[in-house]
């Protein structure tokens, strides 16, 4: 429960008689973007640099946390539950106020941009939860992914359907009626529709069956090798480590270990405590 829910008295769930509790957001969408600054030389493609911050006026969740991904690479964040992985992703996407640190993308400092403008700047994001539009059809979900595009989207649409045939079958069905794993596929599909410059995925494989997970990882690898850097949070750590070019272990909002996936897998202590090996 967020700070604001506390402040404004989150009531019982029968409120639906006069209010519509579905689909409420947590991000302040009215925030205006600030100016874009120059980046630093030698920056990776996307970097959240020494970020510190938390939700509302609550305590800091992130402590001087740095996450980066290079062009054409896959970066994976792992860590215990509540470590701040999702928070770090949200911070990079501008969904919470950073108290320290900066976010830089493609040679520009975008710390002051609001999430909408980061989308326009080429970032695509699949949140961990609530990542579909439940009452819209699968196809409309995908169309919304392409909201900022003004070109013909049918090609991309077909690509996504090819990737997730189970979802293609249900393109006229409301996404809210899909099973957990199918929703996850729609969510990833939506982000791909944006044709982003960098793709951020928060536990894309949670709840998907092994076969789909493999396909998803395959696809992610292909995407990354195609030049689109991918930053993702994963709990299926062993598989994720296998494909990660770079891996971050977060503990209590701070970088605990960093290295290539192989390195971390090789580290016994890390494997036991964080990867469940």
């Amino acid at each position, binding site marked *: 429960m*967020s700070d*604001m*829910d506390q*402040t*404004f*008295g*989150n*009531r019982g769930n029968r*409120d*639906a*008689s*006069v*209010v*519509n*509790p*579905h*689909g*409420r*957001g*947590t*991000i*302040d*969408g*009215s925030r205006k973007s600030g100016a874009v600054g120059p980046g630093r030389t030698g920056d990776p493609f996307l970097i959240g640099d020494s970020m510190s911050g938390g939700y509302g006026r609550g305590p800091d969740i992130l402590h001087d946390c740095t996450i980066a991904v290079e062009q054409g690479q896959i970066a994976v964040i792992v860590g215990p539950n509540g470590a701040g992985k999702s928070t770090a992703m949200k911070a990079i*996407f501008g*969904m919470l106020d950073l108290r320290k640190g900066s976010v830089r993308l493609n040679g520009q400092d975008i710390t002051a941009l609001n*999430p*909408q403008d980061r*989308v*326009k700047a080429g970032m695509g*994001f699949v*949140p961990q939860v*609530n*990542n*579909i*539009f*439940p*009452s*819209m059809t699968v196809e*409309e979900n995908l*169309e*919304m*992914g392409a*909201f*900022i595009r003004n070109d013909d989207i049918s090609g991309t649409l077909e690509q996504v359907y090819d990737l997730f045939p189970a979802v293609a079958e249900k393109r006229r069905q409301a996404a809210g009626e899909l099973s957990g794993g199918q929703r996850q596929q729609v969510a990833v599909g*939506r982000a791909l529709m*944006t044709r982003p410059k960098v793709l951020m995925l928060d536990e894309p494989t949670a709840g998907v069956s092994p076969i789909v997970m493999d396909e998803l990882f395959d696809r992610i690898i292909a995407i990354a090798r195609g030049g689109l850097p991918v930053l993702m949070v994963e709990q299926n750590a062993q598989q994720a480590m296998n494909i990660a070019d770079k891996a971050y272990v977060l503990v209590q909002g701070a970088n605990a270990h960093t290295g290539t996936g192989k390195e971390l897998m090789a580290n016994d202590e890390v494997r036991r405590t964080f990867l469940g090996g």
Partner: protein
Amino acid sequence: MDILNALVAFLNFVFIPAAAYGAQLALGALGVTLVYGILRFSNFAHGDTMAFGTAVTILVTWGLQAIGISFGPLPTALLALPFGIAATAALVLLTDRAVYRFYRVKKAAPIILVMASVGVMFLMNGITRLLIGVDEQRFSDGTRFVMDVRTFKAMTGLKEGLALKTTQVLTVVVAMIVVWALFRFLNRTKSGKAMRAYSDNEDLALLSGIDPEKVVRMTWIIAASLATIAGVLYGLDKAFKPFNYFQILLPIFAAAIVGGLGNPLGAIAGGFVVAFSEVAVTYPWLKVARYLFPGWEPEGLLQLLGTEYKFAVSFVILIAVLLFKPTGLFRGKSV
């Protein structure tokens, strides 16, 4: 002949008035349901928004009439309508800015917005009265009837007359156009889809690059337009009196709920359900029965329940509908 008479009596006293009233309720309910679906609260100020929009339209109408502009057989108010809509849109955008936006930014529980709308209701209530007073105002002009009773009787030779008012036809036609346009907008256009997306999942809409404030503004403008159109049509058909616009809130909410709050299609169906149940269930069948069964002189009026209970009856029907159709006529957002 007698069957025709019975039919005409039924059309004249039940069908036509209920259809017009239903269309008015439907337009009102559409506004309520839109705000509920997208801004996530029941807007108790909607009735007074209707009143405000109508009041402005009336003032402009008077102005137009004073300088001699008219709209031929149609009411001049239609020409004034755009001004009314503009003023109302400005007012609701202002209220949004001054009141609702604060809570939206703070992510307050929506019930706070409901209560804020009660506050806004009080305010608008007062503003409208300051603007135009509390008295009943009439502002319909142009041709009153498409078909009046006398002409009809002369034309057909029937004993029963049929009246069709311009405003009734206008109400139904405008309602149909507005509904059609709204649906096209919501289902076909990018902006409309953005509104639906925002309604479904605010955060994700944001992450898809949709500007939430724009969606909110658009919603308010549409809601204001719907409110003004509904209010003006209602005022043309009946009469304008600020107090009545508060009272109409109740049937409007009933219509929106029975149709499934948050569902535009439901709002329309709900409007007609409420209107027809109010008028039809308390209709005394005496007259119709006399035509259908000549020679039969029943003692009472053949009325199921007195008109005093018309509203009660319509509620009982609504609840019955809901009991047999637990998802509402159409599935709402609040399942």
